[in-house]
């Protein structure tokens, strides 16, 4: 499968055996790499809103001098509100197979006073700040409250998380998001209009990404997804609509009973061993055997077991070494030369000869 040097203590495998493949009838394959927030590794809980009726407010300190509605024109508060509102709408209307997410409803509320953001006060604020690290375009701070049992209440003055309003909320799960604040970096430049010059980020696109965090999604490794974490410096990024990966992420968090989203429960599972011993942190990649495109990936656990969440279908699975010496914890680029394909919108499909570098960050639990 590979040519050239072999630098790894254990080579990559192509796991083609039936025991490691899910052989089902569904033909549609999507690249699924969305990530949900996870409170801790030993206790996998979705981190989501107890009630999907979510209110948000623009910080009255807006507008910001680095946000523009036309070249050289500082965006008015309404321009900003309009862009952010449209971003919320994208998630509210997220669909999969023509079925909408269940009950996500975003409502803008007004506030008369400047609101601290981020603040764990059960008020979801969208604003600008000058306190972000260099290289940060925007940041979402998601506050959750946890309990040993479900349901539980929070919001009262004496609870684990008092809400500024004093309103008591009921969390039907053991973990609920109670507050999420979005902060745009006031040291970056934003635009609310089309064809903005280079160096200005499309505010609606950035808001769409941040709202993905607000509802409980972490970053995705799929380059064409809204939840992909990195941007580029030389061109304004415009991606206001959700990818399939984003939509499925929203549906997993807020499933519509009729959506058939439970198909995601399908998984490829197995154990990777080297010389009879469990191999930890092996990179497992599921490929669409027809196109060669990467569908999803994961890392093996210390026991060597792995779980690849996929839709029903037939896949090839690659097991790739994570490190040249089993202890260093680093991929080698050489390991990826043959398999770095299908991850980005511009990379080639995974068919021989393979020559693209991966830019995939993977699904890591």
């Amino acid at each position, binding site marked *: 499968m590979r040519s050239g040097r072999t630098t790894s203590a254990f080579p990559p495998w192509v796991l083609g055996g039936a025991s490691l493949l899910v052989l089902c009838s569904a033909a549609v394959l999507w690249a699924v790499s969305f990530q949900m927030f996870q409170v801790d590794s030993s206790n996998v809980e979705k981190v989501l809103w107890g009630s999907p009726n979510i209110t948000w407010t623009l910080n009255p300190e807006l507008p910001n001098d680095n946000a523009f509605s036309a070249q050289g024109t500082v965006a008015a508060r309404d321009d900003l509100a309009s862009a952010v509102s449209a971003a919320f709408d994208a998630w509210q209307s997220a669909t999969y197979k023509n079925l909408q997410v269940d009950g996500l409803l975003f409502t803008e509320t007004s506030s008369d006073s400047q609101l601290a953001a981020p603040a*764990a006060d059960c008020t979801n604020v969208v604003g600008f700040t000058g306190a972000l*690290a260099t290289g940060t375009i925007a940041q979402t701070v998601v506050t959750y409250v946890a309990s040993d049992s479900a349901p539980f209440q929070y919001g009262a003055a004496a609870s684990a998380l008092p809400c500024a309003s004093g309103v008591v909320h009921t969390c039907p799960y053991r973990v609920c998001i109670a507050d999420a604040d979005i902060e745009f970096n006031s*040291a970056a430049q934003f635009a609310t209009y089309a064809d903005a010059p280079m160096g200005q980020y499309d505010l609606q696109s950035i808001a769409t990404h941040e709202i993905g965090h607000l509802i409980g999604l972490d970053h995705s490794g799929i380059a064409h997804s809204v939840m992909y974490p*990195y941007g580029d410096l030389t061109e304004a990024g415009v991606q206001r609509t959700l990818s399939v990966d984003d939509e499925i992420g929203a549906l997993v968090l807020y499933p519509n009973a009729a959506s058939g989203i439970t198909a995601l429960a399908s998984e490829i599972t197995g154990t990777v061993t080297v010389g009879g011993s469990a191999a930890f942190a092996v990179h497992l990649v599921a490929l669409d055997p027809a196109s060669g495109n990467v569908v999803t990936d994961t*890392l093996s656990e210390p026991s060597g077991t792995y779980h690849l969440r996929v839709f029903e279908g037939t896949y090839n699975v690659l097991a790739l070494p994570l490190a040249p010496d089993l202890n260093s914890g680093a991929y*080698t680029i050489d390991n990826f030369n043959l398999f770095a394909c299908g991850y980005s919108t511009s990379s080639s499909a995974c068919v021989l000869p393979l020559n693209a570098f991966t830019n995939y960050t993977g699904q890591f639990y």
Partner: protein
Amino acid sequence: MKIEAWILTLWIAIAVTPSIRATTLISMSFSQLTQASSDIVRAQVVGQTSRWNQDHTQIVTVTTCEVKQTLKGHVPSSIEVEQPGGRVGNVGMLVPGSASFLPESEYVLFLEPPAEGSAFRLVGMAQGAYRVYQDALTHEARVILPLNQWRLRNAMMGAGNPAGTVPLLGFHKYVATIVDAGIHIPHGLVLPVVIVSTESRGTGRLHVNARTTSDIFPNANLVIPVGTIVEGDADRVGGQWEIHWDEVNVRGVYAEISASSQEPAGSLPGRSVVLNAR
């Protein structure tokens, strides 16, 4: 905890090729990370604690590190790195993009001054932490590189070297090379600044101090962080000030700039000016 930290460390190690997408982070080049850092250190994690801030509005996590070596800047032997997020009791805050540190592990940290307080921040969030490990076979200290930084690897190790890691020594030398190379302001660079103060240099002459008002990434090898100091001299000519800008201080590294601007007579502090470097 260990798995999560391990994997999050891997996240740190993995970067991506530039892409035009909705984002939270700018994928910073190694040069940009170095320039945006006031201090770069090799340090070992010796403690970590999460706590509410003074206003009880936000949870922050402070990681205490023992400095083993300073590659840029001047820092005490023990430093604190503060990141937003963490968990206190039954309340937690999640901030995607933050770095996760392995207890007792060593990192090369790219640090910038805090907005307030004394704890440092990581430049570029998780991008500003490179984990150092000791190779089990050679016992050599090595640094894990992001996946997409194969050009960086080539620069440090020579083309064709397959390792996704580099010796710590080579990493240090490369940082030193970038620091020593200094900063060169390209022609045509546009710098928005606000004048913060002036000092009299005689009749009709002022020394002018300004600070940049936004992060500027002119090219893949340069960043001018917000707050960068720009200095020049102003001469009163008729009814206006002729200001000649000649120096930029990027995180303690001085660079020459050649730009001029005119401002109506009167007090200069507080005025916004856009500089065009010649």
